[in-house]
């Protein structure tokens, strides 16, 4: 029954390599001994060989008559017209880097403008308090001043409308 034993994967690979002349002397001898004793192996070799030979019916495609001339012409044109592949890659990366830098600068500028705008138009309560610090610190004294209408703090409003405190702030900051 050894003649009908199935071949292992390694044996099948070696059969193919034997047909291709790729085995060393020892492996070749081993295969030839197997072929002598195994009907399965002989059948396998026969089928592999005959189906391989079938590939010879495939058409032989050849390059067109103008291929060499067209190829050399296109090579020269490519050499003269543009940079090399390395140059193109460098240019592509440089352009990408430039675009990213531009976007980063644009975002930075927008952020700066937004910050400046917020600083100018959005009231800062802490700064307002600092400006009014002199008044706030003496508020208890001012509250004792009685205005003609009797309304507490009225005289402060009158002084503010006359920009008295603004003048004082300007003078004190100088």
């Amino acid at each position, binding site marked *: 029954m050894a003649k009908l034993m199935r071949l292992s994967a390694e044996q099948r690979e070696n059969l*193919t390599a034997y047909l291709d002349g790729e085995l060393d002397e020892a492996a070749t001898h081993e295969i030839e001994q197997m072929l002598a004793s195994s009907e399965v192996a002989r059948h396998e070799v026969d089928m592999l060989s005959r189906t391989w030979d079938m590939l010879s*019916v495939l058409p032989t495609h050849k390059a067109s008559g103008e291929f060499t001339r067209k190829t050399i012409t296109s090579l020269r044109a490519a050499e003269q017209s543009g940079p090399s592949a390395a140059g193109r890659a460098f240019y592509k990366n440089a352009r990408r880097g430039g675009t990213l830098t531009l976007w980063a600068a644009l975002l930075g500028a927008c952020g700066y403008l937004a910050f400046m705008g917020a600083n100018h138009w959005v009231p800062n309560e802490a700064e307002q308090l600092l400006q009014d610090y002199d008044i706030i610190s003496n508020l208890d004294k001012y509250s004792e001043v009685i205005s003609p209408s009797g309304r507490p703090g009225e005289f402060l409003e009158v002084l503010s409308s006359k920009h008295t405190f603004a003048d004082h702030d300007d003078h004190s900051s100088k």
Partner: protein
Amino acid sequence: MKLNGTEENPVLRDPDVRLMLRAKEGDQTAFTQLVANYQDRLVGVLAHMLQNKEAAEDLAQEVFLRIFRARHGYEPTAKFATWLFRIANNLANNLRRDAGRRKEIVLNVNDSGPLGPRPGERLIAEKSGLMPSRQFDKNEMCAMVQAALSTLNEKQRMAVLLHKFEEMSYTDIAAALDMSPAAVKSLLSRARDNLREKLEPYVRQGTLGSIQPE
């Protein structure tokens, strides 16, 4: 490792390597000679890979363009043919991947999965079901063999083409496909098993085998 002289660097015995070295030095005639030497071989292999001769010529031109642009940095570490077909294999794979994304070419993979038999298998099944014992004419036989070849995956097909039509050794095929020689041995064994499986019924019936190629 840099070697000097053909005694130390056997690849320098390759006349095409010497032509490429001349091209590296600016010899345009040498490069033109290389194109002439390899154009038919390259277009032939690529035409079977892509199953389209026009696409094969375009791709072959791209291969030569890549080689031309790389000439200044060329270092002979392998046979010229090995290097050339390595570039060709990579470009062919890229092309098929891009075409597959655009769904312009139906890719043939080894496992048809739940979608059923691939076009090549269907062709073979149809032929065998219709008239299994009749003689096929040369065109039919060619179509059948082409269909069987198309059922192989990309690596198997390229290995078969390089071995059959370029008569490359396992070592050279390994260098071209970026594999080990042992992996190439296994790859070719599976490829030939697949071909045998598809074509054996016709060989057994004495139909395909009875027609001699011209």
